[in-house]
């Protein structure tokens, strides 16, 4: 192995060599620079390989042939090797990315770039505190120099501000170093750490003060929140490729320096590091909300990420040997993502966030952009996810709940503004000029994206080896979904075939090993998904981006069922959230709704993460917090924690089933999604939430919090959701929104059933799961088909389509009968079980609310079919054809399914009924042959079907017989038709269909919840907008901020 000193020597030699070249030989100079950087990258890669693969011990390199305390020594361990690799690789790729800027400025700029890389590597390698100061100064000056690469006029001012602040930092650091030397007698960090223990009390106070100054100087290098205005100006104005180095390499080096220094200070200073880190993380993320400039936004995000890693370093006493795994995971994810994003920003001409829409023409760039965002936010397959899981688990185990809450809050805000940006890129209109596809940039971006995925695999492998977590990237469903990324070039129908085959095949392979309840969900997720995918055959062309997203969602759901431990469950939960977000985002106007969906889902997911972490911490079994925590062990959670765990998990799952108060994302997300996406999201995705609630209630049962019975609260929430959901559905003008609100109502029913906590209640909830999937998918498909043909979703613009679209009419008719619970179809079965369940339970008042919501449900169903299919045909709809074949086919399958399920409910429910006995032995149904009886009543589905069939037929025939002599009234026979054509829609009968009800019950549907959440987001936004005025742009003010920060921390530190 080449000694690591050559990293420094090679860079220096190359930098000096450049001086010998004539000014015109810029090409040669550029070649030497790339060669030197490549050599440095190779050395660090070689060391990383040696440490990672052969597990070699860390190596000390002595300079001047003398032992460390008397000379400077460098140390190369796994962490140093990885960090130097990241630093030199980023520099190499950035050199590629800013090729033209370097060539324009000539060999001097290249020499400065080499020295900058050398300085960052030096900071990581050196073990001598004064040497650290020299390398920091080198980094500061080279940053000052490299800022000139930018063609932005304002970069000069940013450079000057940086130099002012670095002067103040160097003063603090020098004073700290000399007094620490005086107290300990050595300048070597390890020597100082040992000497610090045995300091005699007299000079202990002086040493602590000296350490304080050194610590504050290095923390100031990490751009802590109140005192980092200067860093943001650099990020905004410097050349993006240099900002990539400054953020990825500079951040990594400074963080490692602080980590080394914390060795000296001992555990007394860890709370200070944590405090500064958390304040930076939350504060910077908050202030990033109102940002519009893309590079400044990345600056805020970079500062926030470094704050998060500082917090992790501050928790070293608790994390123990996990610190490396967590800190490096977050750091590498940050470095790779931030560098990639900055290189992307060098492609885009405009600086506003929506200017990135220019990327849309290049699917590879969009994929890279999405990869970097997922890396930053820490979504499943990437290292950030494993790191965040371990961090949450350990923090909860140590009882640092407030810190965990702050970190999750900051992460949520970061996800919000990053994915809002992604939404702009996908949806906003493309700016005129396309992106400048310089080869250097593209290479850098691709390497960064690939590195991101490789890191994901490595961290998964490390998690597997160290902690026994499953390596997500080896999970078959996820691999299958990601394979679709490679098949994007295929036409849509082949991919659709593959997808359906995959779903059905996977079901066939693994359906055996599930209990009846999970099996039902498994059937709905996979077979149900396959049936809906049939509708996707109607699309032409390649449909880039649809199949990876859809299969990601399905993969997430299958892994949700397969999960046995909390980690697997949570990973699946986030995968399906991400997959469904990208799926919903495909709709034409779905950008704001997709964002609100993602924010609510991630908020719920973080609550679930906190819940699982708490559960693992409280588990009475192991002394040390358990590594893997099985789902079934939720039952054994100790009493003081159990209600809180239940509360967190319940709220998390209810965000997914859109209970009242957490429902505002659903109407927009389901209505604005594409024709075949709406049934997927509404029919299948909501069931994931129900599945979670099932798991929760099965394992934890009834819980009490301060005397309140939590399941009783859930009962009320279910009832109110059912009532208000149905009520809001009545007054909708848009057909898809009506169905979306009806989903909220139906989920309210299911929640109510679950919360009844008795045998039949759960059975009813399960019945709802099946029923709701069938008729909601059918209705969404038929309404989607109608909307595709008529071009509008507003019901008052339709009417009289029964003649033109008979199959859709039949599908909607059957759907309505099933949904409203009218006898022949399975809806009635659901109602019957429901009433039995209610009679058994002793709750009276919520039942009244549920009964009220029943007829209200019928109102909007009537409105749906009446306004679309009955009434008079509009002129422009004369020549409409039936909905496309592929959209009608699934509907017909569902009609058959509904009829079959209505006649023989036993096929699905019988085995589940027995399965329920283990939870609620009493109160089950007894299945004798084809009819079912319960303590209160008797249900013979076949008899009902026959009787209702006969009644219907007789009435129908009689009607035909009576009407055969009826006079047919032409539409424009004004006297009889009683309808004026072509008047503005206000006179159309479908407009404001239930006006009298609105007058009566209108007060119930005031958008309080929307206003509530709107108020929260507005306060955050305006608060951030006011707070960011703090950065006045005056370099002197920034220096005053830094001094103020130092004094504040001193007073605070003295206080504790």
């Amino acid at each position: 192995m080449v000694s690591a000193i050559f990293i420094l020597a090679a860079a220096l030699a190359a930098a000096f060599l450049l001086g010998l070249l004539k000014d015109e030989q810029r090409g040669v100079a550029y070649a030497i620079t790339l060669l030197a950087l490549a050599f440095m990258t190779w050395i660090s890669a070689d060391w990383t390989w040696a440490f990672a693969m052969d597990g070699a011990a860390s190596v000390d390199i002595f300079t001047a042939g003398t032992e460390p305390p008397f000379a400077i020594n460098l140390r190369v361990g796994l962490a140093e090797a990885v960090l130097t690799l990241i630093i030199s690789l980023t520099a190499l790729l950035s050199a590629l990315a800013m090729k033209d800027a370097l060539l324009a400025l000539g060999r001097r700029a290249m020499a400065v770039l080499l020295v900058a890389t050398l300085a960052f590597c030096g900071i990581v390698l050196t073990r001598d505190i004064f040497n650290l100061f020299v390398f920091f100064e080198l980094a500061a000056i080279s940053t000052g120099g490299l800022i000139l690469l930018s063609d932005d006029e304002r970069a000069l001012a940013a450079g000057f501000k940086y130099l002012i602040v670095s002067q103040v930092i160097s003063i603090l650091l020098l004073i700290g170093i000399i007094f620490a030397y005086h107290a300990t007698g050595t300048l070597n960090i390890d020597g100082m750490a040992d000497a610090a223990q045995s300091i005699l009390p007299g000079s202990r106070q002086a040493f602590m003060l000296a350490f304080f100054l050194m610590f504050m100087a290095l923390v100031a290098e990490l751009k802590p929140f109140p005192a980092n205005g200067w860093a943001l100006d650099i990020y905004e104005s410097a050349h993006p490729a240099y900002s990539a180095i400054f953020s990825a390499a500079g951040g990594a080096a400074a963080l490692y320096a602080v980590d080394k220094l914390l060795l000296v200070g001992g555990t007394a200073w860890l709370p200070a590091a944590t405090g500064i880190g958390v304040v930076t993380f939350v504060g910077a993320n908050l202030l990033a909300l109102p940002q519009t400039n893309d590079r400044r936004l990345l600056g805020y995000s970079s500062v926030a990420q470094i704050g998060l890693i500082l917090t992790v370093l501050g928790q070293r006493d608790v994390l123990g040997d996990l610190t490396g795994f967590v800190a490096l995971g977050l750091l590498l994810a940050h470095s790779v993502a931030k560098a990639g994003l900055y290189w992307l920003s060098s492609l885009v001409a405009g600086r506003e966030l929506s200017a990135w829409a220019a990327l849309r023409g290049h699917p590879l760039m969009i994929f890279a952009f999405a990869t970097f965002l997922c890396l930053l936010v820490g979504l499943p397959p990437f290292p950030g996810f494993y790191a965040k899981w371990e961090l949450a688990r350990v923090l909860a185990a140590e009882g640092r709940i407030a810190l965990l809450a702050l970190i999750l809050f900051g992460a949520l805000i970061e996800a919000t503004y990053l994915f809002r940006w992604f939404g702009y890129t996908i949806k906003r209109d493309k700016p005129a000029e396309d992106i400048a596809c310089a080869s250097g940039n593209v290479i850098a971006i691709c390497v960064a994206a690939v590195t991101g995925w490789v890191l994901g695999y490595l961290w998964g492998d490390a998690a597997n080896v160290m902690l026994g977590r499953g390596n997500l990237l080896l999970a078959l469903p996820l691999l299958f979904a990601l394979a679709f990324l490679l098949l994007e070039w295929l036409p849509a129908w082949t991919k659709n075939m593959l997808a359906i085959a995959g779903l059905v095949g996977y079901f066939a392979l693994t359906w055996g090993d599930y209990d009846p309840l999970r099996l039902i969900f498994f059937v709905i997720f996979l077979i149900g998904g396959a049936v809906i995918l049939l509708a996707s055959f109607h699309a032409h062309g390649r449909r880039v981006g649809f199949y990876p997203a859809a299969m990601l969602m399905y993969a997430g759901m299958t892994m949700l069922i397969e999960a046995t431990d909390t980690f697997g469950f949570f990973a699946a939960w986030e995968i399906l959230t991400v997959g469904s977000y990208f799926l919903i985002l495909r709709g034409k106007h779905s950008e704001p709704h997709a964002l609100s969906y993602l924010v609510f889902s991630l908020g719920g997911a973080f609550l679930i993460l906190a819940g699982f972490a708490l559960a693992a911490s409280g588990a009475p079994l192991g002394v040390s917090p358990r590594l893997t925590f099985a789902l079934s062990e939720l039952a054994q959670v100790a009493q003081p924690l159990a209600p809180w765990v239940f509360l967190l998990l319940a709220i998390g799952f209810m965000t997914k089933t859109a209970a009242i108060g957490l429902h505002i994302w659903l109407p927009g997300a389901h209505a604005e999604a594409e024709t075949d996406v709406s049934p997927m999201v509404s029919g299948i995705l909501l069931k994931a939430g129900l599945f979670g609630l099932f798991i929760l209630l099965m394992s934890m049962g009834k819980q009490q919090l301060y005397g309140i019975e939590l399941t009783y609260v859930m009962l009320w929430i279910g009832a109110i959701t059912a009532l208000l959901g149905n009520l809001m559905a009545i007054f909708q003008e848009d057909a898809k929104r009506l169905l979306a609100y009806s989903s909220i109502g139906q989920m309210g029913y299911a929640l109510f059933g679950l919360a009844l906590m008795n045998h039949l209640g759960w059975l009813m909830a399960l019945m709802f799961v099946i029923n709701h999937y069938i008729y909601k998918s059918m209705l969404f498909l038929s309404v989607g088909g109608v909307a595709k043909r008529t071009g509008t979703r507003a019901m008052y613009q339709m009417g009289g389509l029964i003649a033109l679209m008979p199959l859709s009419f039949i599908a909607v008719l059957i759907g309505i009968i099933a949904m409203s619970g009218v006898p022949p179809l399975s809806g009635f079965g659901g109602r019957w079980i429901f009433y039995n369940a209610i009679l058994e339970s002793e709750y009276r008042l919520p039942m009244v609310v549920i009964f009220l919501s029943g007829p209200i449900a019928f109102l909007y169903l009537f409105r749906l079919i009446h306004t679309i299919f009955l009434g008079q045909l509009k002129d422009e709809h004369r020549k409409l054809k039936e909905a496309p074949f592929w959209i009608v086919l699934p509907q017909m399958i569902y009609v058959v399914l509904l009829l079959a399920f209505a006649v023989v409910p036993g096929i699905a429910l019988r085995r589940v009924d027995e399965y329920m006995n283990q939870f609620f032995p009493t109160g089950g149904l007894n299945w004798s042959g084809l009819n079912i009886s319960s303590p209160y009543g008797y249900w013979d589905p076949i008899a009902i079907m026959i009787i209702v069939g006969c009644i219907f037929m007789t009435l129908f025939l009689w009607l035909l017989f009576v009407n055969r002599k009826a006079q047919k009234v032409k539409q424009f026979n004004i006297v009889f038709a009683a309808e004026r054509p072509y008047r503005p829609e206000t006179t159309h009968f479908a407009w404001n269909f239930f006006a009298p009800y609105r007058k009566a019950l209108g007060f119930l549907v005031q958008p309080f919840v929307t206003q509530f959440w709107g108020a929260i987001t507005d306060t955050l936004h305006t608060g951030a907008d006011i707070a960011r005025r703090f950065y006045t742009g005056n370099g002197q003010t920034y220096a005053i901020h830094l001094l103020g920060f130092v004094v504040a921390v001193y007073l605070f530190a003295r206080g504790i």
Partner: protein
Amino acid sequence: MIRRAVVLALVLAMGAIFATLLAGYAPDGDLNLTARYYADRTAPDIGSANIVTAIIVTYRGLDTLGEVTVLFLSATIVGLVLAGGRRRETAQRPPVPVGELLTTGSRFLVPLIMLLGVYVFVNGHLTPGGGFQGGAVVASGVLLMLLADPLKHFSHRLIAAVESVAGFAYVVIGVLGLVLAGGFLDNRILPLGELGALASAGAIPLIYSLVGLKVGAEFSSMLASLSETEEL
């Protein structure tokens, strides 16, 4: 006005921190661990009479290498920053009337200053002073020449060449130290000679002369690029 009050308050707070540092300071009765080692081991191991030079060049050689890079960086960036401005043609600059005393004085003094500079950095390991001080003196000599004849055009090529060769040689010596002797920048690649003699302390005189040349070149290039900027 509030700004000044805030700054005053902050400065006084820093003053309080420094005051506690000052109060807590007690000079050591005897040399601490590191200093004692240097005091005892410099003569036999490094063979340099000036212990500070031994520390600077050998024991903490990496610092000095970093420091030389700092100067190289500053000179390069100053050149980069000022090169951006319009390169004024020497012809159109008005001939500044230079005093008689200055021209003759400089013609007489410049060689002496250069000699002093060279003496300082060659005897770095014996008498106080060394590469940086010698380089600064040489630079002041160059400065005097500049003042005496503002139109004199310094060939940047020569300065850059001297600077680069010196720097590169320094790195090569460092690497030689690694290859031949104990470690990077170890001065025992040349014989130590006996204490106090000119050719003693191994490679220290060589290194310090290179540093002197390099520092002198860097300062003069800084001054030259400054002098070529035009009046604003």
